[in-house]
């Protein structure tokens, strides 16, 4: 039992962590939390199933197309819902504009694709049924690869450092002549791909299901709240912790109460450590 709790916990945890990283990537570039993060994960699953199962493409091509499509969704998010409201961040209009876009994505998928869960293609042969099945290790591998790629990007490339610079201090970065707008668009495209990868790698586990959108919106945000806004390491630790906690609750007290347990945990963490467990203290207000 412990093994299966760990296997499924780490697998869903990896998906939550990646969605959390997608939230953070958008937040770092723009100080905006976007409701499209969960929808990107949902799209990863749905588009993967569409390209590979329904249209019969080779899965590598399906993956590339899925990533590309979600990158485009990311860019649309930036142009349509974020840029127009950046001037008045304090009015929190971004909550509404990104929510509107997220709902539009979700309902377009519901109408054009299906409201029922659909199977996701097997990438590495038929199901084994055990805890060595690809549905358990694939998300974890995707998560590790993403972390490695992001670490490389942020530490060893000029573009990555520019990302860090605008995340640290937007004004100063602009004053230095960094192309803040282009970097923001790039961040949103990157977030799109990370979200898509989460959905694609987690496809076998979560299926190609439109209802995953709001679900991932919530479960993907919990790691962000745990780890502190904009803190990727916090999100990853938080994601795995959440996955294991949820699966353990699932095995111990049953399905419904595991979601109640996660919700209660979320509220308690917010009350006890409002800045997250690894977050920075609040900024000056006056």
């Amino acid at each position, binding site marked *: 039992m412990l093994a299966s709790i760990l296997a499924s916990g780490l697998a869903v945890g990896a998906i939550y962590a990646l969605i959390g990283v997608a939230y953070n990537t958008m937040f770092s570039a723009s100080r905006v939390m976007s409701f499209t993060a969960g929808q990107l994960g949902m799209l990863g699953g749905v588009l993967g199933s569409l390209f590979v199962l329904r249209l019969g493409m080779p899965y590598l091509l399906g993956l590339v197309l899925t990533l590309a499509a979600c990158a485009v969704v990311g860019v649309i998010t930036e142009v349509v819902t974020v840029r127009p409201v950046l001037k008045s961040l304090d009015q*929190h*209009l971004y909550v509404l504009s990104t*929510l509107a876009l997220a*709902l539009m994505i979700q309902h377009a998928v519901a*109408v054009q694709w299906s409201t029922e869960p659909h199977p996701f293609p097997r990438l590495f042969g038929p199901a084994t049924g055990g805890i060595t099945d690809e549905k358990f290790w694939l998300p974890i591998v995707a998560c590790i690869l993403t972390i490695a790629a992001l670490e490389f990007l942020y530490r060893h490339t000029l573009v990555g450092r520019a990302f860090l610079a605008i995340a640290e201090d937007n004004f100063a970065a602009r004053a230095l002549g960094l192309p803040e707008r282009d970097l923001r668009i790039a961040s949103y495209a990157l977030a799109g791909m990370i979200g898509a990868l989460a959905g694609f790698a987690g496809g076998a586990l979560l299926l190609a299901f439109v209802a995953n959108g709001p679900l991932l919106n919530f479960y993907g945000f919990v790691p962000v709240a745990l780890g502190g806004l904009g803190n990727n390491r916090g999100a990853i630790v938080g994601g795995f912790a959440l996955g294991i906690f949820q699966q353990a609750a699932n095995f111990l007290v049953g399905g419904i109460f595991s979601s*109640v347990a996660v919700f209660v945990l979320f*509220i308690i963490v917010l009350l006890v450590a409002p800045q997250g467990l690894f977050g920075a203290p609040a900024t000056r207000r006056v």
Partner: protein
Amino acid sequence: MSAASAVDGGVTQRRGEASGVVRQLMPLAAVFAAAVFIPFFSNDYWVLIATRAAIYWVLVSGLNLMIGFAGQLAIGYVALLTLGAYTASVLAAGNVTPPVHPYAALVCAAIAGAVFGLIVGLPALRLRTFYFAISTLGFATIVTQIALAWQSVTGGGIGLPGPEMPAPFNTHWGFYYFCLALAAFCTWITFNIAHSRFGRALIAVRDADVMAEASGISKPHLLSTIFVFCGALAAVAGGLFATLQTYITPDAFTFDLSVLFFIAVLIGGRGSILGPLIGTIVLTLLPEFAAPLAAWSTFLYAALLLVIVLAAPGGIAALLDFQSRKPLESNRAIVPQPALLDDLLGKQGVRGDIALKDVVLSFGGVRAIDGASVDVRPGQIHGLIGPNGSGKTTILNVISGYYRPEAGTVTLSDKPLEAGRPVARADHGIARTFQTPRIVGEATVLENVMIGGTIKGHASFAEALLQLPRQIKEERMLRARAAEALRAVGLEGLGHVRADRLQHSELRFIEIARALMAGPQFLLLDEPAAGLAADEILRLGQLIKEIARRGTGVLLVEHHADLIFDICDHVTVLNLGRVLASGTPAEIRVHKEVVSAYLGG
């Protein structure tokens, strides 16, 4: 102004205020009066639709206070509708208890809604609004899951019957009038809250939370009250919704409903009641007229939401606001009437000083205050000058309670002033203004000033809901006082104007009027002369002198050396967080270091 004309002004004011309230209530009353006749001119189907609109409005009227007034973006509020529907139905059906009377079941639903409304709202008390949005979303997700899975109680996917109303409310007509009456009642009580100090405090928390705190408004306390209230209304709406549906399953409570409620408020416009009411009616009717688009209805709602946010954030209310399109008189002058200060400031008892002793405070590695001592005495004007970054505003913020000094003491009448609790300062008789005026742009000038008098109100939330006598009396007192404060600072005649239409200099005087509302014993002014014309600075100086003459201690942070030397009794010069010099203006003027470091030779 003579006493007679002052009284005269008060009477006109009162008449104006009464007609203002009536003017705002009239359209609301008209909507409900029209609704009364719907059954006479249509069939049962339309009565059903109208009933649904009335039920939605019971929920939206509360949500309007939360979203439109408090700015808390509750996106998953369908969860509380679901909770109310199931609580009422389960109790009335007797699944876990002996069957409960439908009315009692509704009351129980309201209690459950109040409790969960508060729990879901907890993150909003301390965190940015996105956390609250997510927590309502998460709650919406799990409530439906529980309804599906807890079969023994909720009937799972099969569902259970809604409570059946007793006669005479068990017919289409009867139930319609029951819901309509409740909707009208909710309109009235939310209107009362909107026009009470609670409603003003909500928009203050939304648009200028730092100012709200300094005015003695406790955000956690206020928001908790609203969450309880809105949760109860939503759950009652849920109980009625279950009766209307006659049978409920988890499918009946899709997230689409949440979107509908939410958009109804936003289409209507922030800080309005009529707007969201129209929004609710329109959105309830829309699917009836756009049946072919039914599959895409939520997509269209979402698209509509996007368009509103990007193109018309003011909503219907902004379109209906004809008043704000009238041009203002362009050559207005600010002419304070210090004589009126007597009433506002009253007789000040003899009090001790505000004393800072050897205060140290650093931000990161920078010592913003490095062992400074300042003493503000009642009835005196204490000027605080120094170069940028010398710690002037920081000292003001320490007194206001925003910062906690690392060393040193801050006392009032020799008793320590608790650090980190700015909300308690108003009760200590300390009021302040801000370097950048913190004003609620969408509220009128008079309402802005009235926010400063929040601590003068004692009527409870419940008294405000029902417009009980104490509330009416206090509201009248606050209104009269605010009008007087406006006249005292020289903004007479601008009370009814939206604050964001005024000039910068006028906003500075609004801030002073707002601070005067509380009848402060100490007044902290943060660069009140910044951006003022020369003659305005002169009048400002006169006003400050008159305020101090009535016993209020003034701490004046300023860069205009002329103003400082002109009106101050005592001047402290700061440099790099330390006191460079302290003494009378005459002493400071000739102080060698000050002259070379700051004033210029």
